[in-house]
């Protein structure tokens, strides 16, 4: 079914879409084209003159070990975040789908973290994991692990992963719960009569039927880990120690705004832009075809 409004004249519809178009242009098209433009320029340190250098900025990037490491780190980070955030959210959603008493309160509480701004979330985790005064760090010390994310890179990496996962669970939870509730009860009952135990029912009926949701969330989570985790990194580790938590978005910021290497930074954002475009295309393509029933 299609819902269509028909306008007689053309100025009204134009007037109605103009604000949207202006926003898109000012906040997306303009900066994106600036980034594209900057990425093929080499600017002197004082920003006085710039020179057209073709794709030199890009080739330089792919020869730069720092950048490749950051790329790797980001890939690992996004897979970890997507995996844990989705796995835990699914587990929680399955449990929430079962309980009858107090379900509303439970669900509401699980959704709260989503309302917390990334920087605030980061600050919270920094306090809890602070090697000297943090409660979590204290617990870890008492079980014999010398937690210190200010010195040890792997601890810092774990910290941003935990913070990023914690924040994304709510979002995934809402989608998984909706997906679970959309599965007709009678299917589960039919499977129970067909001799499938709870675990088998989950893996052969529920999980396959959730796959459109799962796939959608996978893309959303990867995009989240790539881009929306800036605030968390900035508030907790600022990319350190020794770049151990410098993921791609953070590197764009670091190189561009701190290091003032505008060409390299712009080239990095163009690559990120390209990644997000690919992910979006894959998303739309797949959701429309493969995973629907």
């Amino acid at each position, binding site marked *: 079914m299609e819902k269509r409004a028909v306008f007689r004249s053309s100025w009204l519809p134009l007037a109605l879409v103009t604000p949207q178009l202006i926003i898109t242009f000012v906040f997306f098209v303009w900066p994106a084209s600036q980034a594209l433009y900057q990425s093929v320029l080499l600017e002197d340190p004082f920003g006085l003159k710039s020179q057209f250098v073709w794709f030199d900025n890009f080739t330089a990037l792919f020869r730069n070990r720092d950048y490749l490491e950051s790329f790797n780190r980001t890939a690992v980070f996004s897979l970890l975040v997507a995996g844990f955030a989705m796995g835990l959210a699914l587990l929680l959603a399955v449990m929430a789908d079962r309980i009858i008493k107090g379900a509303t309160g439970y669900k509401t509480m699980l959704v709260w973290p989503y309302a917390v701004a990334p920087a605030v979330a980061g600050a919270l985790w920094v306090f809890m994991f602070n090697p000297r005064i943090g409660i979590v760090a204290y617990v870890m010390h008492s079980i014999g692990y010398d937690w210190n994310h200010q010195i040890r890179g792997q601890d810092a990496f774990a910290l941003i992963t935990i913070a990023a996962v914690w924040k994304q669970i709510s979002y995934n939870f809402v989608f998984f719960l909706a997906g679970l509730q959309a599965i007709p009860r009678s299917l589960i*009952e039919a499977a129970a009569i067909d*001799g499938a135990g709870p675990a088998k029912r989950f893996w052969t009926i529920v999980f396959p039927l959730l796959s459109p949701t799962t796939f959608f969330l996978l893309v959303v989570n990867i995009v989240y880990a790539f881009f929306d985790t800036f605030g968390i990194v900035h508030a907790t580790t600022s990319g350190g120690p020794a770049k151990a938590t410098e993921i791609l978005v953070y590197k764009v910021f670091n190189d561009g705004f701190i290091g003032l290497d505008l060409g390299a930074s712009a080239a990095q954002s163009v690559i990120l832009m390209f990644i997000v475009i690919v992910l979006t295309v894959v998303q739309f393509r797949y959701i429309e075809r493969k995973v629907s029933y």
Partner: protein
Amino acid sequence: MASVVLDNVKKVYPGGVEAVKGISLNVPNGSFTVLLGPSGCGKSTLLRMIAGLETITSGTCRIADRVVNEVEPAERDIAMVFQNYALYPHMSVYDNMAYGLRNRGTPKPEIERRVREAAKMLAIEDFLERRPRALSGGQRQRVAMGRAIVREPQAFLFDEPLSNLDAKLRVQMRIEIRRLHNRLKATSIFVTHDQVEAMTLADVVVVMNQGRIEQVGKPTEVYNRPATRFVATFIGSPAMNLAPGRVIGRGKVEIPGSGTLDFDPDTFEVAEGTAVEVGIRPEDMTVATPDENTGFVIKPEFVEELGPNRLVHGTAGGEPLVLSVASSMPDLGTRALGLRVPANRVHVFDTTTGRALRRG
């Protein structure tokens, strides 16, 4: 195959709804039993308790002489056909049918054999590779049946499996289900609120109302000898006429304003003067010739033409009364009509309990 025996089974849902209020029922091995009743009377609840999808609050359920109250659905060895078919949308028709067998570790060649055989029986061989989404309602229905058949269970449970089909297909599937039953001779319990379905399919009809059984009997029994006023009015279309009356002697009842009727009292003694409700089916009355004195008269008010027959609406004892006559009858006009009603077609009900005042 096995029998299903219920003994004083009750169901109270959390929240206090008493859906089934003590039902005892014996479904013998190989019988086709239909649970019939209006919406909300607890038919599905009862069936789901037999399937193990709802817990039994009290009473016992036996399948093949084994108490199954605490047995998981999977271990009850029953198959169920759902109203919405509940086919697994992400599996092919073949996999849908094979799923239950695979879960039970049936060897592959045996699965293949059974699925092919059932598919042939149901004429769905051509769709085995398709997803349920790519099937019509009738074909999905067959797949749902096939999924039940391949399991070769102790008993089949059907919860209104035909109600999502259009009228024509419903008649066709009804006949097919009956044919299948004649062939497989499997114990079947079939839930419906459609009396025609019940009458045509059943060996035994169980009429339910508000969580209780009103009557258990062959289709002809519940039609000819309804045990209660509820059964009498629920079965038959157009519904049985009810008029207030008074017993004026053994096997004789008076309907004020319309005259008297003879009824067959069997061995039942009803005191003279007892107020009763008199039930007569529209199709059980015949119009007497004008000079014949039958003692029972109605005044026609208007007529509905239905094609093969004609419904004449009038009143008896202040209550509306419908008479069904063949369309070939000449127009009866609006003169008072003398009616002939055979004594064994007059039903007399207790005004308070609603029970039929006769035995048999």
